[in-house]
Every structure is written in structure tokens, then in C-alpha cells.
């Protein structure tokens, strides 16, 4: 990976981490009136995938949306304004944290119902191919989604039509508070999908560089040939609670010792140390400044007017 790419990767990981730490800092003030599902610890997945994409590529995410939204280039000011429930937010204060969208940057939305956006990615990719576009579509979801029937229907549909979808399964071991060993016989989602006729791999350690290379090769191949969909499972770990700003290692469902190896191999620290310290500092200052301005923008923005309750229900 060349120096510029590495710097960009670091910028994305840093942006997500710092945005979410700021969200967690602000949260007790009750200015953010929306459930938040933080990606802290999982930033490398969104960053590694999106760093390998083209601007015209499309991304569908889930309610743990801040990471993928930001990595795909989603507008920072509009995101904070949305969390604040302001009219200047990316959905004018109508969607909140779980429904971030930025059409201009190809981030096509996030759903609060698990596995719900996977089929949208497949249909979107079908439409792109029908029009002769070389863009690809990323569908990102968690390990819990692989237990929904829709997941299996979608893998079948995507392979059947050879559509250019890259499935990214973020396996953080937990669906809300339930460990995968209590939900699945084998913790091997990437192997389970292969009989559908899809090439599938796994990144074991949350490594964004390995993930970047896999995605880059897969995306290039999908653009060049009509090879159809690809599947990548990434093992990662959520450091904070399922929903909310804090930690929950004392809640009884998991132990801090499970998290410690992931924290020790923190990808923010690892990638940061690969950079020239001056480059790293510049990135951090620029990102902190942009985030500061975005928070100020959200603070100063107006609430939606009462009549906004009734707009955007139908086209006319």
C-alpha cells in the first residue's frame, strides 16, 4: 500500500474514532436525542473497504451506521446535525443515527431492521449492470444478519444473476448481547455461503490493510469481468455497549479479557505508527478541526419547522 493510500486509510479510521468519541462525550448532555450504535473498535472494517472503492460505487449499511457513512465520504456536518435532530441534518431530522444517508457520496442508507438492506444492494447492482455501469455495490451487515432468511435469499439471488455486489460481513461476535456461539453451530459464515456458488474469504484480525487488498482485487475483478458477487467476512470487535455511549463489561454477558487482545491490536494505533509522524499529526489536526466545526454547525442549526412533520411523505 503506497504512502498516500495508507494516510487516507488512517484518516478514515481516525475520523470515525474521533467522531464517535465526541458523540459519546456529548451524549450525556442529551443534545443527541437518538439511539446511537458506536463502531469504536470496528472502524478498520468500514475504512478498509471504502478506501478501496471508487467514488461512483454504492454502499448500503446498517444501523451501526456512523463508520460506513463517514468512510464512504458522508457529509460530517450533516451527520452531526442529524444526530442533533436539526433541519440541516442529512435527513432533515427525520431519520436520526440509524438512518443516515448521503446519496451524493453513494451511501444509500441504513436500516434499523437487521438484514433489511442486503436485498437493496442486490437490486441496485442489477440496475447498474442493466445500464452498463462499471460501478459496484457494497452490502455491509453483521454476523446476526446471517441468521435471517433474507440473507440466504439474497446470496442466492445475487449469485443467480451474477450481480456486482460485494458482501461484507462484520463479525463482532455479538447480536445485541448474545454471543455467536449461542446462535450458530459453527462460527464460520464465510464458509457457509460457499455452496451458493460465491467466492468467499475471511479476514481474521480486523486488519484494514489485508481487507483493503482483498476488496481492491475483488472490486477490480468485478468491474473487469462479470464474475458476480463476492463475500468477505471480517472478524472484529465492538468495544462499547450495543447501543449507547458507554462500556458494558460489567453487564455479565462478556468479559473485558475477551476485548483486551482487540484493544491491544488497535488498528488506529497500528496504522498511525506506520505513518510519518508529521503526516499523522497533520491528519489528526485537520480531522479534529473539521469535527469541531461540524459540532458547532449542529449546535447552531435550526430545528425542523412544525410543518416539516408532513413533508416528504409522498412525492406530490
Amino acid at each position, binding site marked *: 500500500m503506497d504512502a498516500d493510500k495508507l494516510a487516507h486509510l488512517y484518516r478514515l479510521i481516525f475520523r470515525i474514532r474521533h467522531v464517535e468519541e465526541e458523540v459519546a462525550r456529548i451524549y450525556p448532555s442529551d443534545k443527541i436525542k437518538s439511539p446511537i450504535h458506536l463502531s469504536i473498535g470496528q472502524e478498520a472494517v468500514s475504512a478498509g473497504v471504502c478506501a478501496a472503492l471508487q467514488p461512483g460505487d*454504492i454502499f*448500503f449499511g446498517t444501523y451501526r451506521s456512523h463508520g460506513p457513512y463517514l468512510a464512504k465520504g458522508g457529509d460530517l456536518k450533516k451527520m452531526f446535525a442529524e444526530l442533533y435532530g436539526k433541519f440541516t*441534518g*442529512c*435527513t*432533515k*431530522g*427525520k*431519520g436520526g443515527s440509524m*438512518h443516515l*444517508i448521503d*446519496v451524493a457520496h453513494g451511501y*444509500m*442508507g441504513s*436500516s434499523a*431492521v437487521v438484514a*433489511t*438492506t*442486503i*436485498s*437493496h*444492494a*442486490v*437490486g*441496485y*447492482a*442489477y*440496475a*447498474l449492470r*442493466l445500464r452498463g455501469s462499471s460501478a459496484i455495490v457494497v452490502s455491509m451487515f453483521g454476523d446476526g444478519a446471517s441468521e435471517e*432468511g*433474507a440473507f440466504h*435469499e*439474497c446470496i*442466492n*439471488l445475487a449469485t*443467480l444473476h451474477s450481480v456486482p455486489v460485494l458482501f461484507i460481513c462484520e463479525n463482532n461476535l455479538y447480536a445485541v448481547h448474545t454471543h455467536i456461539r449461542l446462535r450458530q453451530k459453527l462460527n464460520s459464515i464465510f464458509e457457509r455461503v460457499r455452496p451458493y456458488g460465491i467466492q468467499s474469504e475471511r479476514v481474521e484480525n480486523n486488519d484494514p490493510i489485508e481487507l483493503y487488498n482483498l476488496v481492491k482485487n475483488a472490486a477490480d475483478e468485478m468491474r473487469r469481468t462479470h464474475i458476480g458477487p463476492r463475500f468477505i467476512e471480517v472478524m472484529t470487535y465492538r468495544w462499547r455497549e450495543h447501543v449507547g455511549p458507554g462500556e458494558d463489561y460489567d453487564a455479565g454477558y462478556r468479559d473485558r479479557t475477551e476485548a483486551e487482545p482487540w484493544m491491544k491490536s488497535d488498528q488506529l494505533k497500528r496504522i498511525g505508527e506506520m505513518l510519518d509522524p508529521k503526516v499523522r499529526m497533520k491528519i489528526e489536526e485537520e480531522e479534529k478541526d473539521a469535527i469541531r466545526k461540524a459540532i458547532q454547525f449542529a449546535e447552531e442549526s435550526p430545528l425542523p419547522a412544525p410543518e416539516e412533520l408532513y*413533508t*416528504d*411523505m*409522498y*412525492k*406530490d
Partner: protein
Amino acid sequence: MERIITYSEAIREATEQEMDRDPNVLVLGIGVPDHKGIYGTTKNLQEKFGTARVLDTPLSEDAVTGFAIGAALAGLRPIHIHIRMDFLLLAMNQLVNIAAKCRYMYGGTVSVPIVVRAIIGRSWGQGAQHSQALHSFFMHVPGLKVVAPSTPYDAKGCLIQSIRDDDPVIFVEHRMLHSLKGHVPEKEYTVPFSKARVLFEGSDVTLVGISYMAVECLRARQYLGGVGINAEVIDPVSLSPLDIETITRSVQKTKRLLIVDTGWTSCGSSAEILARIAERFDEVGQVRLRRMGFEPVTCPTAKNLETLFYPNSQKIASMAYRLVHGEKSSWMPAVSDAPEIKEFKGPF
């Protein structure tokens, strides 16, 4: 000279003309390109437009509905066909949580222009899971439009309007309407969702018939004419949005309203129309209101029980008579099964 074609031919013609006009129109669903062609409504479309625009699908209602939504987000206009409305229950998450909500929860940044054609089955022992009319489920949810035209003319115009509409439309067709004939212009036209259709003017009682029940209301009107009752018959055409003004004006004139649904009455379309009318009349007793629909049981298959289960022109005429002459009066016209029901032999 008037051109007369069937309801299913009208649907096929609307689909073909829109596919000719707009390359973004896509047709998909289980069995769409097979030799039966969804009662002829999709016949030969794949031969003309190719396998990329006319798709058979896996038996995955959930994923295929989401697929249609995704394609719509990318700018296509998919028509997703379900040969039985009962199968929509497998797609409720996508229809209610996504299609209905995308525009609003994404702050007006996206459109989901999908058409979901849902066919209500009936007759020849269709039974519990091939006969349900669940249109009221969708009327409950803001963000979805629900239309249920009863004439070939409205079927064509409403389908074209549905395809061109930028919001999701549930297009409800009753299986018993498919063989019915009527005047349909050859060239393209749209029928707006904002207007109920007065099929026959009258002065004594207003009959509102939903989907296929509009046909049975017209038959009831004939029987009622024989006993000196002049019924007005209205087809709402669109259930959501609902043109309550046209129905209100009629009830102001007749002071009597009977709504006949091809579905259950509890929390149904008839309940909704009745409630909206009741809210518009200040004094209790100013108007007399009744409704009729499926009996409150699961649809049986034995012919005699099935006949009891459904409303029909005889039951409609009899209740309308009581609305006009009082509950103690009693009259029932001698009628036989409707021809489209008698002639239907299945197995589909």
C-alpha cells in the same frame, strides 16, 4: 367504435406500452414468463423485452421485494407481481419498513417507484391461504398507495398511473375481474388516484363496492330497480388516497350507505370508509350506515360454505332493501351464481 377487451388484456397492454415508452420499467415475479403468464397479463413480454427486463424469480418474496426496492432506488421502475395476495405476508418487512418509509426517513432524498401487483384469489376451493384480500393492511401505513380498480378501463389507466407514480403502489386485482370485458382505448392514458368513480347514479341508497364487489353492487342495483329502489354505485378505485368527497356527496343525497368489501370488515377498508363518513355527519341518525364483507371466519373450500362466506349481489340487494325500508322489512331477490364464478374451473 368502442374497443372491448378483458381486464387481464388491459393490464397486459398497459404493461407493454409502458415498457415500450420507458426502458426503466422492469417486470418480475414468480412465474411471470411461464406459459400461463399470470393469467395472460404478462404473456409474451419476455419474448419482446428480453430476460433482463422480464424476470422469473426464486421463491424469495422478501429478497425479491428488497431487490425491486434497490432497483427503484437506482432509478428503475419495477413491477413485482404476486399471483396471490397472501404471499405479500412474506414481504411485509420490505413493504412496510422500507418501501413506505424510505422517502420520509431519508428526508426526501430518495424515491421508491415500485408497483406491487397483488391478485386476490377466489372460487374453485382456493381456501384459507389463496383467497385473502389484505388491502386494508397497506391502507394502514402512510407512504403506500393502494388502488383496486374494478373495470378494464380503470385497470389500464391505474396501472399506467402506478408505474409512473414516484411512490410505492399496491395494485390490487381480483382474480374474478380478469375475464370481465369492457371498453378500453388503445392509446395510453392515466386514471388519477384522487377520484372515485360513480358507476351508476341513483337517489335512494349509496352502494360502495371495493374491487370485485363493485361488480356485485352493479348486479344488486339491477335487482333493487325491480322493487323500486334506485341505488347509486360507487367504485372508490383508489383506497389510499381515498376520495371521500365523492362518497360524502352521494350520502348527502341518499342518506343511506352500504360499503361492500371483498375482505373482512374488522379494521378493514369498509371500517375506514364508514368512520370517515360518520365523522362528516354531525347528528347521529342523520344517515344510515352499514357494511358487508367476508364472514369473520377462515375461507373454507366446500362449495356451499364458500358461497356463504362471500358477500354477493343477493346479500347486497337484501341489505340495501333493509336500509331503505327498515330493519324489520325483508326481501331477497332470486339470483344464481355470478357467471364468472360459475364458469371458473381452475385449477389456478
